[in-house]
């Protein structure tokens, strides 16, 4: 029986020769990821259920990356980071990326691959729905709640249902100015916000092979916006090159079998993709950027696990070099590593940071989730009124970036940057 990559990874992690969609299996976790918003609750469940003196199943496999509410005066947010710090100390956890220290990284889904904890063939559970990002490196990675995370902390295992696979085959050369974000927004538009509920979304084809690991992360990151359990891309030379100097744990890549049966296959010609947006208030509200040129904007936002990687800032800088933004443009690098590269990398004689300053963007903020999900009232870039925002983030639900009256359009960094210049939604190909 031929297996998809998702089935192959789950078979390995469950010690079973074969697994089938719909089967309930116990899998061993390779990594449990948590952060400041859900970590304290998961720790609370762990202590309540396993006892105050309980030890985590494997201190080398628990990764804590605080990222949500870091630069805030909110006392409970500070208290939550204190809970994580105390837990890391008490349990002897090596992988605690502590705020306020040189170890601080920022957004967990960009930091996890950077720090070599997202590896091919692994099973990664995280207390965050965007944990599906790490399927871009060939892992089975999925978001779970605090109670399940408390269970994993105590046992290293979780009972899960093997998902059926939806296969997205994308072939051909992507047009210029079309990005991974445009691919995933189109797919979500086609299948809807519940089009992949419970399923694995597997992305393959020569277009996927041709794009960078970071672009693959953007695609897998938004699998959950179609309801998927995981997004996944088979590891290749690019994947192995990306992790070669980073891997923090032993790993063995796992591959699916050619021609493994799937629930459904969707085929796309790369040439059919265009720069696009998701209109308020759902990620499935697909529209071509060109068809929204009458939408006037108040703000642009570049950041988050979806659109705050160095490749995202590179794209934005390519558009903004030699141009001026006409609306408030917020830049929030996902991690400290991204922030460092913004200051170092150059296009011509200017660093990316200088290009953004020349363009009139807001000063670059410290790395965190910031306004992607609203957060405490003093969160950087949070909407406060009826702003219309174009953003590289992943969700445009009512109230997502703070105020319920704001309207959020999701787009690629190229489209966000082009729109920041004109003050209207703009296809980057149309920027003269």
């Amino acid at each position, binding site marked *: 029986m031929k297996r998809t990559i998702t089935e192959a990874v789950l078979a390995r992690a469950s010690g079973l020769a074969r697994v089938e969609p719909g089967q309930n299996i116990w899998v061993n976790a390779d990594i449990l990821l948590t952060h400041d*918003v*859900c970590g*304290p*609750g998961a720790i*609370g*469940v762990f202590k*309540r*259920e*396993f*006892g105050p003196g309980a030890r985590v199943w494997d201190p080398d496999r628990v990764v804590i990356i605080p990222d*949500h*509410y870091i630069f805030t005066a*909110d006392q*409970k*947010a500070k208290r*939550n980071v204190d*809970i994580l710090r105390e837990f890391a100390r008490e349990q002897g956890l090596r992988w605690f990326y502590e705020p306020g220290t040189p170890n601080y990284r920022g957004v967990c889904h960009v930091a996890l691959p950077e720090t070599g904890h997202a590896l091919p063939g692994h099973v990664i559970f*995280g*207390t*965050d*729905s965007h*944990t599906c990002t790490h399927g871009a490196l060939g892992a089975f990675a999925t*978001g*779970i*709640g*605090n*109670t*399940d995370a*408390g*269970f994993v902390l105590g046992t290293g295992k979780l009972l899960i249902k093997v998902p059926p696979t939806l296969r997205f085959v994308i072939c051909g050369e992507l047009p210029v100015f079309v990005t991974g974000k445009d691919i995933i927004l189109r797919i979500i538009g086609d299948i809807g*916000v*519940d089009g992949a*509920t*419970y399923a694995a979304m597997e992305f393959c084809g020569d277009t996927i092979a041709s794009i960078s690991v970071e672009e693959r992360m953007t695609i897998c990151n938004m699998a*959950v916006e179609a*309801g998927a*359990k995981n997004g996944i891309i088979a590891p290749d030379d690019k994947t192995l090159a990306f992790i070669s100097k980073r891997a923090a744990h032993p790993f063995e890549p796992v591959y699916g079998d050619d021609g493994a049966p799937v629930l459904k296959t969707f085929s796309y010609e790369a040439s059919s993709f265009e720069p696009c947006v998701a209109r308020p208030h*759902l990620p499935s509200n697909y529209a071509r950027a060109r068809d929204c040129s009458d939408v006037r904007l108040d703000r642009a936002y570049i950041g988050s696990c979806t659109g705050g990687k160095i490749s995202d800032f590179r794209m934005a800088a390519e558009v903004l070099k030699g141009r001026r933004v006409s609306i408030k443009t917020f830049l929030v690098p996902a991690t400290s590593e991204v922030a460092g590269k913004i200051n170092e990398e150059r296009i011509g004689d200017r660093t990316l940071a200088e290009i953004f300053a020349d363009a009139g963007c807001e000063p670059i903020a410290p790395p965190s989730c910031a306004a992607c*999900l*609203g*957060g*405490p*009232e003093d969160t950087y870039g949070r909407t406060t009124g009826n702003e219309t925002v174009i953003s590289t983030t992943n*969700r445009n*639900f*009512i*109230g*997502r970036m*703070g105020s*319920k*009256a704001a309207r959020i359009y999701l787009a690629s960094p190229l489209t966000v940057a082009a729109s920041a210049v004109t003050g209207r939604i703009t296809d980057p190909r149309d920027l003269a």
Partner: protein
Amino acid sequence: MSEGRRTVKTFEKRLKGRVYVLGDNIDTDQIIPACYLNLVPTIPDEYRKLGSHAMAGLPDGLPPFVTPGKDRTEYRIIVAGRNFGCGSSREHAPVALGAAGTVAVAAESFARIFFRNAIATGEVLPIETARPATNLFTTGDDAEIDLAGLCLRNIRTGASVPIRDPGPVIEVIAAGGIFGFARKMGMIRSS
């Protein structure tokens, strides 16, 4: 309900209560906005506060789900459309509903993580309606979920729709969530 944990000894076969009606794709930001995620569900006082903020992210203009100044809702049952609970993995979402006193959400379908969290915590019973049900209810109606007869009924109008059999989910919820269930079944040691 110490430390936010529910211990329900027997589960009623007929759940009755006032209904709040919602549409499709009710996301977790509407169920519990991110500004309240600084509250930790396992801390009793914060569990209660999460309840007071349940559904605080609904668009303005709808009736309040929890009366301002109160901790608990008068709506024991939510009737909704497709994909209830989409978005974040925040367990604060089913916890906020359970802490507010909502016992069941009857929706045409659920987002995966919300469904699992609702059961794992034992906070709120997710019931799938076999047909769209939102057009049969108005917020404020009284409803009955008949778990034996497998239907959702509007007590005011008498209209009803079949519900899918929740199967073993009932036992897990009745035991107060997966840990309680696992102990009851001898899968893990009693504490």
